């Protein structure tokens, strides 16, 4: 009980810091105010630390050891997105993506921090690090895809801005095309091994615990379709150097497949391991 309380407390601190970072990133990116950038980035890093501590506390909690319910997986996705923002800042020195990423992190963690899930994991055989790795790797792939989609949208806006030839001060915050293109492609390239390994680990665990019937579940089949779509998208982008509008359509299509897979968790007959 105490661990659970502490986990929530740290998560609430993290949410507060995500909120501060989400607000500070607006003047930092839109008006290029270094002072605000010096608030947004450290606040995100501090939020990440508190969020990580919260996650560690949660994993050590006595009643369950996994982020099993929707709220907890949401919070973990928020953590991974915040990590992605910090990595992008460190590598490309741009905070522009934070305008979208940080509010998403804040919202993803808000409900888990104040209305924690009540579901727990009743199967002791799943209390292993492998199942956590399965969940974390797939969430990392989702986070990478979301980041790639956001970067592609920024690419398109900047491209339109440059094509219009009326470069407005209101568009100064947009990162250069090459930067957003790199972020979009590298995120996808990072997401692919995560998704592959996540699905592979999940399949091995399912094979050992449930047997072949697991692979007949539509949700599980949809997951493999998602992997194929993901691979196809990367192949097309790399092979033809797809950028701009068509790249967004492709990313958006795969993103909706991912959303479908996520939603299917709620209806799947066998891919539910929690008890309310």
């Amino acid at each position: 009980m105490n661990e659970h309380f502490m986990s929530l407390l740290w998560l609430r601190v993290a949410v507060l810091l995500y909120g501060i970072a989400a607000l500070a990133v607006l003047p930092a990116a839109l008006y290029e105010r270094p002072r605000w950038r010096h608030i947004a980035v450290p606040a995100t890093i501090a939020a990440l630390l508190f969020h990580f501590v919260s996650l560690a506390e949660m994993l050590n909690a006595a009643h369950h050891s996994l982020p099993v319910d929707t709220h907890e997986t949401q919070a973990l996705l928020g953590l991974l997105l915040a990590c992605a923002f910090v990595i992008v800042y460190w590598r490309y020195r741009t905070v522009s993506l934070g305008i979208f990423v940080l509010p998403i992190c804040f919202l993803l963690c808000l409900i888990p921090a104040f209305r924690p899930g009540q579901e727990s994991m009743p199967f002791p055989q799943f209390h292993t690090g492998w199942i956590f790795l399965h969940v974390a790797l797939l969430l990392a792939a989702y986070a990478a895809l979301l980041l790639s989609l956001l970067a592609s949208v920024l690419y398109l806006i900047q491209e339109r801005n440059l094509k219009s030839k009326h470069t407005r001060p209101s568009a100064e915050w947009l990162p250069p095309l090459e930067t957003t293109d790199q972020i979009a492609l590298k995120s996808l390239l990072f997401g692919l091994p995560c998704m592959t390994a996540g699905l592979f680990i999940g399949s091995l665990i399912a094979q050992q615990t449930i047997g072949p019937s697991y692979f007949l579940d539509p949700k599980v089949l949809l997951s493999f379709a998602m992997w194929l779509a993901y691979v196809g998208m990367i192949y097309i982008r790399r092979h033809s150097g797809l950028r701009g509008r068509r790249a967004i359509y492709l990313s958006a299509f795969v993103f909706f497949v991912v959303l479908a897979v996520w939603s299917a968790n709620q209806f799947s007959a066998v891919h539910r391991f929690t008890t309310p």
Partner: protein
Amino acid sequence: MSQTFNLVLLGINHNTAPIEVRERLAIPAGRLADATRTLIHQPGIREGLILSTCNRVELLTVQENADPNSNAELLRFLHEYFSLAPATLTPHLYEYREGEAVRHLFRVASSLDSMVVGEPQILGQVKESYSVAREVGAVASSLDALIQRAFTVAKKVRSETQIGSSSVSIASVAVDLARKIFNTLDGKTVLLVGAGKMSELAARHLMQHGASNILVANRTAERAEKMAAQFNGQVVPFDALYDQAARADIVITSTGAPQKLFGRSHGQHFLHSRRNRPMFFIDIAVPRDVDPRMNEVEGCFVYDIDDLQQVAVANLADRSREAAAAETIVTREVEKYQQRVQSLDAASAIRGLQEHAENLRQAELRRSASKLAGLTAEQQAAVEALTRSLTNKFLHPPMTALREAARDGDAQALAELEALYLGQPRSRNGSKS
């Protein structure tokens, strides 16, 4: 505007004097120290600094006793040092004193008084003048504090407004646009189509910002080779232009060809060869070399001379908007600076008042020493404490009034209070006038 410390600024700039006059007053960097030394040796000049750029020559001085109706010393210096007749110079001169001089200096350092508002060079030029003035011993505490404050204000204006963030020349607009596409120009390839002066200038600017590979295509091979040699680049035979153009990230065209060299289909072909990596076409030729419809091809960005000019003009308008915000900062900083100077003045007046009261107290105690001789040590200490306490209580209202007058920048009230309590007003530097 209230007084500070006999600050006088005399000068000419691009708004008040034509180039013919400015060039006669311009001081080369090598002679600035000598000129500053000569200025400081003029009678009545306590501290001095000369700012000499292509757009302005200004003398900033702190004087012993500045006569508000005369700038004879500075005029004499200008006439003698530059051997100019007063009639040539006087109509173009402007003069600022005290608070107005402080404001002008802050505006100059913040690039609000520049020909191109927001240009960054002026701050470096002020720093250079300050450094020379310090070296020759022409700057002491008053001017030193003022100039340091001007640097801080300029920095504040840069960081709190976007006055210098946008480019206003064609070449720098082209570099800015290229950066919006490629992020960095490091390692980028530039193709010059036509070996004209304008394309040379643009290429030079791009190279200064990191572009490293230059390809030159020109109908006259000799000129192409000459320009390629200048940039340590490579010549592309004009016949092979369409095969080689896809190698370039940035294409600058400036030929005199009557027809378009590059059409929409060329753009599609180049992009296909480059696997959709973007290309930036800078078309500075008139008539144009690049079909504007190429801009419709995804990944091709075509800017002609009018487009670049339009961006430059828009950026200039943005700077003007930012300048209004910068003026507010300068006004606030001038007030703050003056309040600080006035507070210092109040401090010296308060010190004078305390000394005066203490002298009176001591004199009265000495006068009554014989009458107090019979008192015990304890009683004498009580008398000492009583007189000290009375003095402090009497001093409290005038000291408060002095502080308030200084804080409000009310020089007249300050002078009247000093005259009332000290018998005569003190000069700004703290000594009795």
